[in-house]
């Protein structure tokens, strides 16, 4: 048809075919071949970290870890959450998913820590610089709205199947709220208090450490909670690329239309999610600083 005249592929709608997909694909293969050494290093570091963490969580007997996690819940919130968590862990063990759950928990912890190590400094930078803030906002939108498993494709190309592409995809997917909440928290800090820091001759670094970060902490902790929840949801999806854990069983159940396995693995994910959510949100509000900040903003 007309396509031959213009020497251009046309879509069914009569618009020239934009080869965005192939550009991205070309870019990924260029990146893969150019930074082969770097990626290999990243891969071995991540694998090592994951194996170490998984040994700590999955190695000891079930009771030991379950009680240790329940104690964390006790410390963070109270005895009700501790007992509830313990019951939940027994259920997970009862459906034979304990090992998978610990694999997934290792993935979540590792990915969340990396995501926060990247997100918090980025959020601080964005809070202090309007241009940076404007530049990263669309990037964050992109990272959060792109269907999660799309990240798996390039990461698999770069890192091959296994745990590492799962971790990398999870980090990218889960990072955005960490950046956003950090920026928001810092920008919400009372300008006059920051000004007081300047007026008494504090340096920028001290103001950040002694005023801005402590006062922004409740908001940042809300971001940490979001990061962890997103990481958990992504960890399940990364079962598709052989990251193992609960995700592996969920994907397997999907492939075989195995309702009972799917339910059991899914239930374990839910229990783990509730545990992580309650503990992290409680940690955000239980510190003395958080209470003082909350009380101060309530009394205004």
């Amino acid at each position: 048809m007309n396509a031959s005249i213009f020497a251009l592929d046309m879509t069914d709608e009569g618009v020239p075919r934009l080869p965005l997909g192939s550009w991205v694909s070309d870019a990924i293969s260029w990146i893969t071949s150019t930074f082969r050494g770097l990626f290999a290093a990243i891969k071995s570091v991540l694998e090592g970290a994951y194996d170490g963490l998984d040994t700590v969580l999955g190695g000891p007997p079930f009771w030991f870890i379950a009680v240790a996690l329940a104690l964390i819940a006790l410390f963070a919130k109270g005895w009700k959450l501790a007992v509830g968590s313990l019951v939940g862990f027994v259920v997970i063990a009862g459906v034979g998913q304990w090992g998978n759950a610990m694999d997934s928990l290792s993935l979540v912890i590792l990915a969340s820590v990396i995501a926060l190590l990247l997100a918090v400094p980025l959020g601080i930078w964005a809070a202090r610089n309007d241009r940076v803030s404007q530049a990263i906002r669309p990037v964050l939108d992109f990272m959060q709205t792109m269907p999660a498993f799309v990240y798996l494709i390039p990461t698999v190309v770069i890192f091959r199947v296994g745990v590492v592409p799962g971790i990398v995809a999870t980090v990218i997917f889960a990072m955005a709220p960490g950046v956003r909440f950090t920026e928001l928290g810092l920008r919400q800090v009372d300008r006059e208090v920051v000004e007081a820091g300047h007026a008494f001759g504090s340096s920028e670094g001290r103001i950040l450490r002694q005023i801005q970060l402590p006062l922004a902490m409740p908001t940042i902790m809300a971001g940490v909670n979001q990061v962890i929840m997103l990481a958990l949801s992504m960890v399940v999806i990364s079962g598709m690329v052989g990251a193992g854990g609960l995700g592996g069983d969920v994907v397997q159940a999907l492939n075989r239309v195995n309702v009972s396995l799917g339910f059991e693995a899914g239930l374990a994910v839910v229990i783990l999610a509730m545990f992580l959510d309650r503990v992290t949100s409680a940690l955000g509000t239980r510190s003395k600083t958080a209470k003082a900040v909350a009380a101060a903003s309530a009394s205004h």
Partner: protein
Amino acid sequence: MTGLRVEGVYKVFGRRPNEAVKRLRDGATREDVRQWGTAAVIDADLQIASGETFVVMGLSGSGKSTLIRMLNGLWRPTAGRVLLGDDDLGAVSAAQLRSIRQRKVSMVFQHFALLPHRTVRDNAAYPLALQGVDKAERRDKAQQALEMVGLGQWGDSLPHELSGGMRQRVGLARALAADTDILLMDEAFSALDPLIRREMQDQLLELQQTLGKTIVFITHDLNEAMYLGDRIAVMRDGRIVQVGTSEQILSAPADDYVAQFIADVDRTRVLTASSVMRRPAAVAFAGGGPRLALRTMRDAQVAAAYVVDRARVLKGIVRDADAVDATRANKDTLEGIVDTSLTSVSVDTPLSDVFAPAAESPLPVPVTDEKGRLVGVIPRATLLEAMVPPETHTPAEGTPVAAEPTPVLDTADAAPLAPLSVPGLPDEPAPAPVPADDTTEVRA
């Protein structure tokens, strides 16, 4: 001690501040340069002496907050110089600026700006930590500062556990703990309710008596400005329109804007007895005898005279009826007929404190200096007249500028007071009748 100098300072926020300054220097107005930026402070010149309490007064948007923030380098002037002692704040490095802020100038904020997550004591110690003072000394000094503002017991509390007034005391203690010569106070009492505000003003004056700091106080409240300030700068639309003592500003407003502004000030808190007192009409010497006293009263056409000794120290008053009795009894001194119950006021008593003695006294209230010498008197009519703002050249519509004496007389007539014995009014029937019942009351 360190003073402050502000020399030809401009501050323009916006895209092309220097262009705006150039045009402002050529006589453009704030509106003319709006396209290049917002001119917050225009051509400000100030000399603030060491130990002075200097108030910058203006409505919101007048540039006063920007001005005070240039005094510690939170803003850098677009043009002009700010000199703190010998340091030109525009020329120092960032590290030097931090050190100046740590050691020479501290600040109290409108909304207190305390660190909510630290105890009251740690808040007071905050500037000391920045100065590098060690922990034990920090604690002691912070405690001292808290005791100075009456919060010695509250060191372990968190700021949100305190009331607004107490929180601002912590803000003040923090600034005092820094022990800088200069104290900047940005609308420091504006967020407090009126009673607490008055309390804080009194406390600041009291502290200032012993500390003698250089205080720059920003406010939009003229009464506060007049109450606290040794000198006041009035700002309008970024410009300083008048600098002077409160009495200078009240008695000679620089322009109609200032005149309108001071129209509703509580003048009685600002004006002092010395600014309205008159020469006493009849003064009798204690050693002079009743006949001399009577002649003085007759000459002045009044019914009573103030009695002073040789050093002009006020002894009391003598009434004509008593003097006549004494003459008939052939006494040659005023001994025994001098009424000492009269209340006198000192020269620097604010007029607000003259009303009560004036209401009770049948004679104009005598004013004495620090040695008790009679230096003047305040007739009630003068007192009432002083409360009326001076006439402006072109009174703005709706401004209650009352220069005619009518309202004064109305007030005087309406007041349920005994008639005044006004000296220096020859048209009045002489001798002005000192009310007989008053006299009998005093005797009884």
